Every structure is written in C-alpha cells, then in structure tokens.
C-alpha cells in the first residue's frame, strides 16, 4: 500500500516530509507540496487503509493543514493522481485503480505542453479516455511514450519509489545534574558524548569535517567553540583531545551546566595507498600535533613555508601544514647548478640597520650590532628593484667577508639611502 500527500498550498520547507516520516521512513519527496509514502507493513498498527489515511489526515489537521489531500492506493501512481485530483481523503480499492482514476482530468499527469495539445486535439479529456485507447495504436503514433502514458493513466506503476534521505544531523547534548568546573571532569563527559556520535558517523560512512562544542554555563550564557582540523575524522579520542586543547586556551569563565556537540558530516575519504611510497602521516595525529602547537599556529608562526612569485628578496608566505602525497605539487624550485650542499642565508628579521664605510664605492667596513669588522673580500653590487606600483623597493646587494670571520649579505636601500645586514651566509 502506498500513500500520497498533496498540499495545494505547499507548507514550509521539509514540513510535509516531517509529517510523512512520522508514519514511515520510506518517503519520497516529489515537489514542494507532494510526497509519496511506502506504507507497507503498517497493517498491524492501523487495521484498514481508511484508518491509516484518517490518521494521516488527522496529523495534518493537527498542524493546521486543513486542505491537505491524502490518497491511499496499491500503486504509487494511483495514489499520487488521486491525491492531486480529489479533495480530502481517498482510498483507492485494490484492483480498481483504473476505474477510480478514469473520471479525473488528463492534466493531472505530468505532461508537457506538446502532448497536452495533442491529446486535446484527439478529444481526450480524462485519464479514462487515455487509458481506454489501445496500447498498440498509441505505440505506433507516439512510440514508447504512448503506452507509458496509457499505463500511468490506468494507475500502473512505472518506476520504484526512491526514498528521500532524511537530512543527517549529528548532534548530542548532555544536561548535567551538577555544574562542573575544570577540564578534567569535562574530559570524561566529552568521551561519553563523542564516542556514540563518532560511532554514528562511522555507521553512515561519514567523518566530521568540523565539530562545534556549545557549552551552556550556569549563568545562562553560551560558550561556543568550533574546530576544523586539517583532515576530517571520526575518531572520538582525537576530537576529545582537540576540544580539550582548544578549551585550555579558550576556557569558559563559569561552570558548565550542559553541553552540546554538533558534527558537520562529510563523506569518508577513500585513500588507496601505494606499496612503494612511504607511509603518510595519520591525519588524526597530524591534526592533534598541530593543535598541541596551538601557541605557534594561532599566531601564524607555524606552517609550511611557500615561495611567492615575486622578485622581492625573502618573499614567502606561511601555509597550513598539510603535506599531500609524495611528488605532489608545491615543491621547492628545481635544484639547478652543480650538485652538493648550498650555502644558506640565515636571515635577520627585520634586517639589521648598519653603518657602512665605502672606499671607491665598495663597502670597506661594516658595523651593525654584533656584526662588525673590516671587509676583506666582497662581491657586488647586485641591483634589484620592484613593486613600483605598490610599496616600491630598490636595493644594492653585496656579499662581504669580514676580517673577524663570517660571510654576510648586506644591502643598501636605494630609496632611503640606508644600509642593512640582511643575514649571514652559513
């Protein structure tokens, strides 16, 4: 037995499905004001189809939907068309689908304009008129579409019911008998909430991309924290650790009376690991480690450095540390020149202001804080400039060796005519 609900004035979004789901989980949404219900197996609760239809109608009236039309039939099409065409409650007797639908207008079928005109020209006005036509003749004139429309007009099903999945909500609330203070008791309670929530996520093949912890405090205020790790996870232990680490840095200022954990689900990732590539870091452990380094990450002082497409010396950005697969994009520049280790710059940030004595236009003595001495060898100047359209820079760069030891990169800011030590070459 199938049921159909038709609301001439569509109720608020999802409300019709909510009503239908009170009776059966197998519900198909067809439009804003239409729904099909699979009512098989409800005979033990409601003795007759009319009792069941009456219960549906009563539930609709309880919501204030007095104009809702309800129809029950052995086929989905019959129930749907009857609900569209008849007010109130309709129960189509089994085997009487074609006869019940026969007087109803042909427009109740979902016909395109061309077909509707054609049937009007043929003089067809009701479903009965179409159902009475020979299938062979319709097939000759309309192709496979003809017999299909004829079957629909006779209340015969074409396609199976495809249930519309209820929106997945993953949330859990715990009301506490006594308020708690501190993170240690909360740790145990979080485990009680998170474990079933994560198990529910796993059962549905989901992971949580984001979790929100909503703490209800004793003074009625809310303390909300949201966490979004680098990789989705359904590991209760990981989420608990992340939440506790977050609360350590953002603690509530009152005792906790209740709390809710909400998860934002995302499909579980499917990863095919390679046999010969090295083991990849566990996303959960990586997220946990980065959370433990919160003091550094929050200030933007931890991450993967990335070079930017600029000639400005020392230009880089800090990106989130989320190493991808081996050989993935974003690597450093290809190593050019002779093989072997390279001298590296140990940058001074910001560059150290320096006093530089020039002889013949070349640095002869450098004095800048701890960097001081006679220049015994030098290479330069290398001139560079850029960003004239924004914050312009222009510099003259030298590599110098000092008598006291040490190789340094110094430069003259040509716009301000000032010298700086950029760093040590090590």
């Amino acid at each position, binding site marked *: 037995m199938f049921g159909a609900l038709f609301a001439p004035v569509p109720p608020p979004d999802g409300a019709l499905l909510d009503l239908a789901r009170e009776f059966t989980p197998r519900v198909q949404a067809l439009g804003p004001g239409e729904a099909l219900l699979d009512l098989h197996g409800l005979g033990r609760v409601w003795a007759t189809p009319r009792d069941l239809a009456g219960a549906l109608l009563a539930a609709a009236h309880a919501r204030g939907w007095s104009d809702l039309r309800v129809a029950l039939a052995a086929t989905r099409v019959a129930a749907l068309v009857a609900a569209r065409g008849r007010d109130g409650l309709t129960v189509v007797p089994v085997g009487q689908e074609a006869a019940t639908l026969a007087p109803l207008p042909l427009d109740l079928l979902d016909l395109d304009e061309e077909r509707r005109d054609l049937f009007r020209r043929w003089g067809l006005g009701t479903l009965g008129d179409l159902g009475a036509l020979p299938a062979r003749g319709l097939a000759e004139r309309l192709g496979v579409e003809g017999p299909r429309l004829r079957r629909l007009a006779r209340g015969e099903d074409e396609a199976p019911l495809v249930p519309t999945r209820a929106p997945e909500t993953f949330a859990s609330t715990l009301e506490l008998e006594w308020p708690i203070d501190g993170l240690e008791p909360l740790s145990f309670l979080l485990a009680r909430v998170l474990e079933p929530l994560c198990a529910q996520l796993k059962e549905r093949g989901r992971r949580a991309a984001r979790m929100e912890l909503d703490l209800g405090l004793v003074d009625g205020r809310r303390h909300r924290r949201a966490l979004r790790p680098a990789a989705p996870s359904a590991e209760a232990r990981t989420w608990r650790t992340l939440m506790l680490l977050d609360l350590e840095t953002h603690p509530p200022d009152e005792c906790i009376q209740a709390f809710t954990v909400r998860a934002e689900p995302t499909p579980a990732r499917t990863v095919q690991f390679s046999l010969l590539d090295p083991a990849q870091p566990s996303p959960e452990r990586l997220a946990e480690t980065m959370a433990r380094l919160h003091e550094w990450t929050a200030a933007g002082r931890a991450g993967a450095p990335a070079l930017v497409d600029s000639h400005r010396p020392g230009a880089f950005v800090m990106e989130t540390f989320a190493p991808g697969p081996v050989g993935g994009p974003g690597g450093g520049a290809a190593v050019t020149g002779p093989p*072997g280790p390279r001298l590296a710059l140990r940058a001074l940030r910001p560059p150290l202001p320096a006093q530089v004595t020039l002889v013949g236009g070349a640095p002869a003595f450098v004095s800048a804080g701890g960097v001081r001495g006679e220049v015994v060898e030098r290479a330069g100047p290398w001139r560079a400039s850029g960003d004239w359209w924004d914050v312009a820079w222009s510099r003259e760069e030298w590599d110098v060796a000092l008598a006291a030891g040490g190789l340094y990169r110094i430069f003259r800011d040509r716009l301000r005519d000032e010298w700086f030590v950029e760093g040590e070459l090590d």
Partner: protein
Amino acid sequence: MASAIKDALEDLLRSRRLQADEPLLRGEDARGRALSTGIAGLDELLLGGFPRGQVSEVHGASSSGRTALVLALAARLTRAGSLVAWVDPGDHFDPGSAAAAGVHLPRLLWLRGERRGRETLLPAVSAVGTLLGSGLFEAVVFDLAGIAATARQRLPGTTWIRLQRLIEDQPSALVLIADGHVSHGPGGSALALKAAAPRWAGTPPARLLRGVRAEVREARRGLRGATVELQACS
C-alpha cells in the same frame, strides 16, 4: 587477502633492502637505520648518517656551513617523502635558501620564533618535545645558532636529558644547530665545523662568491675529519 599480499610484498622489499635509503614502511622498526645526508664524506664520518632516536648536534662559528649541512639532510628527507620539522626560535630560516638546497617545502614544518626581545626558547623546547612525541617527523631540527649562551643556560638543567629520553623510542632524529657544543645523546653525533676561507671568482665589479669549504670533525670520536664544499646559491 589484499592486506596479506601487501604485507608479504613489504617484507620482501625489506629483506631485499630495496628500501634501504627510503622512508619507513608501515610497521618497520628503523631505529638502526641512520638518516643519510647524501654527502658522501659526511655520511662516512657519521657512520651512515644522523642516528635515529638520538640527539645530535652540528656546531660551528658563523658561516661555517652548519645550516647548509642540515638543509642537505632536510632536502634528502623531504624529497623522499618524509616530514621534517624546523624549530627556529631566532627566526633565521630562509625559505628561499631551503628551496634552492632542494627542500620540498610543503613537507617541512617551520616554527618561527617571535621577534627579538621576547623569550622564545622555553616554548621552543616545549614544541620540540611535542614534535618528537608525535612520531610524525623523521628529523626535527632545533636551530639554536645565534641564541645567546645565557638564554640557553636559563633552560632547566634537565632539558637535553629529557629530550633524549623522549626521542629514544622514536624513529626520529633531533639535530641541534648551534654556535658551540650544546648537547648530544649517548649514541648521537656531534659535528664540529670550521670555516675555511671562502672561494671567490672573477674581478670587481664582476666578482662572485663561489662557495665555502667547510672542515667537519666528528667531535665525539676525535680526530677523524672531512671536507665539504658548500656552493654559493646563484
């Protein structure tokens, strides 16, 4: 079934040592496998590379090539797919130099210290502990070069012993970069670097810095030494 075949194949790879220089396979105990720098003379001096599960150090005066040698290690590891962490309380790391040395930057976690004048050594030690405890990184580099000895001395006396205890069960190596000897584990390496005169080429104004020849000595084992040519970045 597929899992069993994969395990069998991985065992075969291990037995044939086809992965000898590569990062760890799942479940592989590689504490005995040193982290090679890819510099032949240096690896020979280190008896294969920096030992895992140990605190090692690379120390020397300014421009002796300390950073370059450790970047060579980071480049070799990150190019092979491993993760490296660089804890830099003095904020001296230069991503451009690292990329030029061949470091695959997305696989390098850089922790930058705050601007000068703020105490960052204690949080940096704590971060090193976190990174070592995670077991995610094959090498954790702790750059102490340029940090005043007085600042180091303000650390608790047990700092280095604690880090050694923390790392000894991990497949990671902790490498310290410093101006002078700081600490190393009982099985760790201590490389002492001495800068020789830099090499220059050409005549002014077209003069170029070609590189530095670093003299490396394994301080723990005494007299043995190696010379490493460090190229200037072009």
